């Protein structure tokens, strides 16, 4: 049976068949348009986050801070060196500036009853960098 004759078997359903095909076609064109609009692959954010946090831990350790990660997106830094608050502030500032993509979430410099530690405790949160 030729193709044109086989088509007669679906003659009454041709509109019903054409409808979903048109919808699928539109979805395919939409997906193609989306791919053309974003020709570059999405970067590996997890890898970048691990790298940034590892670098920050290394730098803060160099500045005399201990580190802890309550969850993959947070970094808690503590130090019990409390001799000169102004010097401590400068050190903290250098850590905040030296840790890209990490945002200061909380900070406490003071006595143990207030901060849970006699010294400095701060929490940095990781923010996804922009990608182009």
């Amino acid at each position: 049976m030729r193709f044109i004759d086989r088509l007669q078997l679906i003659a009454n359903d041709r509109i019903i068949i054409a409808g979903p095909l048109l919808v699928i076609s539109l979805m395919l064109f939409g997906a193609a348009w989306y791919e053309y609009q974003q020709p570059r692959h999405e970067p590996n954010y997890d890898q970048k986050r691990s790298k940034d946090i590892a670098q920050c831990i290394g730098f803060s350790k160099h500045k005399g801070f201990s580190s802890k990660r309550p969850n993959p997106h947070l970094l808690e830094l503590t130090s019990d060196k409390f001799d000169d608050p102004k010097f401590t502030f400068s050190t903290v500032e250098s850590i905040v500036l030296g840790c890209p993509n990490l945002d200061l979430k909380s900070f406490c410099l003071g006595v143990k009853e207030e901060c849970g530690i006699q010294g400095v405790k701060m929490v940095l949160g990781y923010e996804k960098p922009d990608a182009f």
Partner: protein
Amino acid sequence: MTDTTDKKTSTLAGGRAGTAVKPKEKSKGLFFSKKKQKHPPERVLLDYKQGHEKAILESARAEQHALVMNLGFGKEGVDSRIKKVSKHPVLEDGYVIETQQYGDGTSYIEQALSAFEDPAIRKVWIPLKKGRWSYIQQSNGYLETYWSEFPPTDDGVILSAEKKTVMMKPLFIESYALFYISIMLLFAGGLSLGAAMLFKYVVYNEHQTMVNKTYYTASKYLPIETLRGESSTETERLRSVRYSQGKGWHFIKEKLSDDGSMGQFYQKIGANGEKEALIQMGTIQTNNITTEGSK
């Protein structure tokens, strides 16, 4: 031969043809009206398939197409109708398949079924164009169609073109434009997506560049100068310097009141480093601290 058509079709008018549609008698043109007249077809075929299963219906449709092609009808002017037969006194439950060429688009099925309700009637005659005849013979519950060049000579029933009521449908539908367009668009969409992915993952194949961000903005600058101006006295002492995203930078202080109790105070540090007024949060009694909303 007896012409019992009038009697048979009058029973049909009682509503046995469930989908009976009155055919258009007139169709209006732009400048004139023309009357659509009922007339006999050039060829007619009636077939019967026993059983109500879906497979039988599909098979009947396929066989109808094959038969029309094999008999050389061509595709022009071929109309078709398949009627489900139930509770017929002579025929078992099944489907009656009718095919006509160059007819007026109305069906003989109701007249034929009505005629065959009488077991004595074994043959119905249908007049065709150019003086030809077709007769449908019922034998042992099956229908067979024959074409004849000669007029009816036996006692069959002659069916009338004027008594037909139910419309048929064209067997070959040629308007497949939307169907073809949808298939072409599907291919085009698939090709577009394939090309886009080929370009993205094979030809271009580059990752997005990430730009590091620093979140140390003016609102977060550490209040070093403000802290430099702080000093503890016998009645007032700094307990902690704190920052939180909701409250910003602030001091927590303890201060001795005139009545001898030690109070705990909150002091916000403004954006320019200026200190705001002390707000009492609670009292500190010996070693027990009572605070309200300090964290």
